[in-house]
């Protein structure tokens, strides 16, 4: 029994050790320390953050290693011995990894060898910080002690919290009383009351009206981007989430919308100078038609052709936009400048506040339409195709037409997002339409919960809003996406807010095994 605890501790420790070494090699230890500093209200974007924050960061990592290794109640015999052994060995092993890497680089550094030729993120400052400003020997000892200690302490603490009757019962009591008060008639009356519903709608509307006025240009820009990505997510969700057809090159339709709008309203290269609203309509239409044209030859084929064809389409568009060949028509690699902003009755309104309102309205409209679509006959047909295309066709669904409709609606929504994007920035160029946009949208739909509208909001905030708030992590965005996706797939394979299938819970209670009576 005891050896199994150590065993688990060692394995966890190795994993955490590798993670720490990787973090060090890519320079994330400095970033992490900066993030901790930010939590305490100390900005240190341009200088090395103070040592104390680095220490806290490493203590947190060590504690995580300790808690991860410590025994799970219900599954294993839960004793002090086991908890301490597992937590301590996990912390010690990860500490050993950290100490070794710290010592090695410390020695290199004191021999005046600069590792940055091979590892651009390992700066002398980051090495110094990793050794707590000590000599390599003392520093790595300190590191080992710190990690072992925090692993032990965290395992002990989590054991205590799990097993201490008083703590546990008071926690349970607290959560029960919260639940009771939520479930109590008075509260549910208040929630269900027509007037409270109106009031909360009003409050929500007031927030949406007031916020853009008060939080300034920067946040309007950040949340404007989030809004545009919500629209993109809602759009991709139609074809991929509901109809089940993977589209990888979704950015192609975004580009068609943005460029159509840009070419129609900008002074160069064509000087068409069209009205905002007309050009918006045409941009959306052009995107919808491009979706239709892409879908026509391939949507009656089975398999993931759509994924590949759209991927190719997106790359072709981007390369064409960049090429000199197309420069006279699409302004080439320089992009298109002075794209029109919105106007009402001839008066233009292009302040960041106005534009935020426009994006909010667009998000609300698309959300409303998406919600209607989901519950419509068409929406059900999409879902049926998604679940089993042959059976769907056998029940009389025109699968080809349904998928074609889904694709061109998706494309139209992407076109709208593209129009808003180009108009807000008053500029668009080939680099705005790189494949990364598609990947972002796919990630946010998956992370939020594929097929589910609130999930898409959450996903867009998590993937486009959070990185702005946590600016320090900018260089690691791809890494964090990757980690986030893996964690999601392990913990919540259907996303944070999975699409709710009606009565799933009720059904499993009624008939847990689905066996015949």
């Amino acid at each position, binding site marked *: 029994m005891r050896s199994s605890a150590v065993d688990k501790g060692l394995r966890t420790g190795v994993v955490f050790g590798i993670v720490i070494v990787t973090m060090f090699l890519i320079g994330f230890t400095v970033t992490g320390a900066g993030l901790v500093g930010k939590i305490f209200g100390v900005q240190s974007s341009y200088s090395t953050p103070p040592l104390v924050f680095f220490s806290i960061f490493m203590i947190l990592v060590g504690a995580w290693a300790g808690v991860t290794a410590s025994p799970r109640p219900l599954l294993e015999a839960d004793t002090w011995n086991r908890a301490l052994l597992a937590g301590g060995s996990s912390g010690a092993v990860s500490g050993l990894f950290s100490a070794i890497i710290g010592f090695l680089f410390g020695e290199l550094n004191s021999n005046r060898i600069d590792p940055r030729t091979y590892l651009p993120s390992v700066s002398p400052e980051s090495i110094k910080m990793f050794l707590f400003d000590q000599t390599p020997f003392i520093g790595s000892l300190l590191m080992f002690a710190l990690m072992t200690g925090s692993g032990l302490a965290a395992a002990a603490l989590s054991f205590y919290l799990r097993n201490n009757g008083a703590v546990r019962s008071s926690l349970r009591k607290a959560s029960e009383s919260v639940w009771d008060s939520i479930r109590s008639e008075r509260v549910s009356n208040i929630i269900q009351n027509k007037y409270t519903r109106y009031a909360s709608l009003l409050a929500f509307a007031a927030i949406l009206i007031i916020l853009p006025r008060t939080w300034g240009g920067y946040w309007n820009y950040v949340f404007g981007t989030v809004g545009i990505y919500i629209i993109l997510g809602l759009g991709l969700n139609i074809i991929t989430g509901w109809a089940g057809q993977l589209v990888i090159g979704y950015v192609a339709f975004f580009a068609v919308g943005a460029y159509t709008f840009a070419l129609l309203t900008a002074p160069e290269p064509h000087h068409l100078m069209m009205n905002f609203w007309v050009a918006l309509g045409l941009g959306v239409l052009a995107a919808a038609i491009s979706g239709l044209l892409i879908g026509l030859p391939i949507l009656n084929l089975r398999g993931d052709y759509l994924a590949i064809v759209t991927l190719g389409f997106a790359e072709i568009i981007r390369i064409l936009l960049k090429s000199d060949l197309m420069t006279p028509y699409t302004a080439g690699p320089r992009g298109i400048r002075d794209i029109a902003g919105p106007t009402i009755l001839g008066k233009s309104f292009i302040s960041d506040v106005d534009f935020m309102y426009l994006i909010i309205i667009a998000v609300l409209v698309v959300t409303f339409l998406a919600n209607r679509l989901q519950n419509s006959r068409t929406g*059900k047909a999409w879902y049926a195709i998604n*679940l089993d295309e042959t059976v769907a066709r*056998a029940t*009389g*669904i*025109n699968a080809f037409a349904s998928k074609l409709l889904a694709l061109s609606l998706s494309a139209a929504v992407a076109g709208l997002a593209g129009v808003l994007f180009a108009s807000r920035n008053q500029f668009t160029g080939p680099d705005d339409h790189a494949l990364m946009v598609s990947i972002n949208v796919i990630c946010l739909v998956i992370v939020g919960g594929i097929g589910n509208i609130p999930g898409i909001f959450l996903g867009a905030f998590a993937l486009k809003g959070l990185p702005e708030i946590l600016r320090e992590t900018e260089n690691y965005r791809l890494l964090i996406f990757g980690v986030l996706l893996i964690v999601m797939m392990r913990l919540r394979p259907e996303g944070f807010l999975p699409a709710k299938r009606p*009565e799933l819970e009720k059904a499993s209670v009624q008939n847990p095994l689905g*066996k*015949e009576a």
Partner: protein
Amino acid sequence: MMLKVESLQVFYGAIHALQGISFHLEKGEIVALIGANGAGKSTVLNTVSGILRPREGAVAFEDQEIHEVPPQEIVRRGVIQVPEGRKIFSRMTVTENLEMGAYTHTDRAEIARDMESVFERFSRLRERRNQLGGTLSGGEQQMLAIGRGLMAHPTLLLLDEPSMGLSPILVEQIFDIIQDINEQGTSILLVEQNAQMALAIADRAYVLETGKIVMQGTGDDLLKDPSVIEAYLGGH
């Protein structure tokens, strides 16, 4: 004549799955199509449903050719397939599955009435109406698949191996239900590997072997035929 299939040739790429098949079905009949795994039974049903296209030959339903009509239109005309392997929508509830069956109908009141009559026939489904299809037992899933077919008001019901993977008691029940549906006026084309049961309820039957019809006759005659007994009834 309700269904007339003539010299049907169907290919999957280079695979010649149906090699000139002809048969027919009169109004009110149960016609069985029996044959071993891979004989081409499902291919016949999918071609009649319009999901597959024949390279040669013709399919006529109520004296109109349908082999170039799209599947959703064939469904509208009343030819409904219940696919093999209890293909229900596993992530939809029982009610939603039945609603999908009525996809070609729009009259809400009528759909509600139809659903009520399906629930009358399969009371098990009524109890489980809010449950996801995938959580039903095998027999219930087959009932749901048939119920979904009935929601579309079939004149001709195509059943693809309804007894597959079910216990003997359930097979018995399913075949009773099939007979009952037939007695209420729906013609049935029944595809089965379970020749014993299929021949027992069929008016007429055809034996399919590697894409060709090798024998035909009334259900009773085939049940007594020595070569059928040898090949499909376990030699008893």
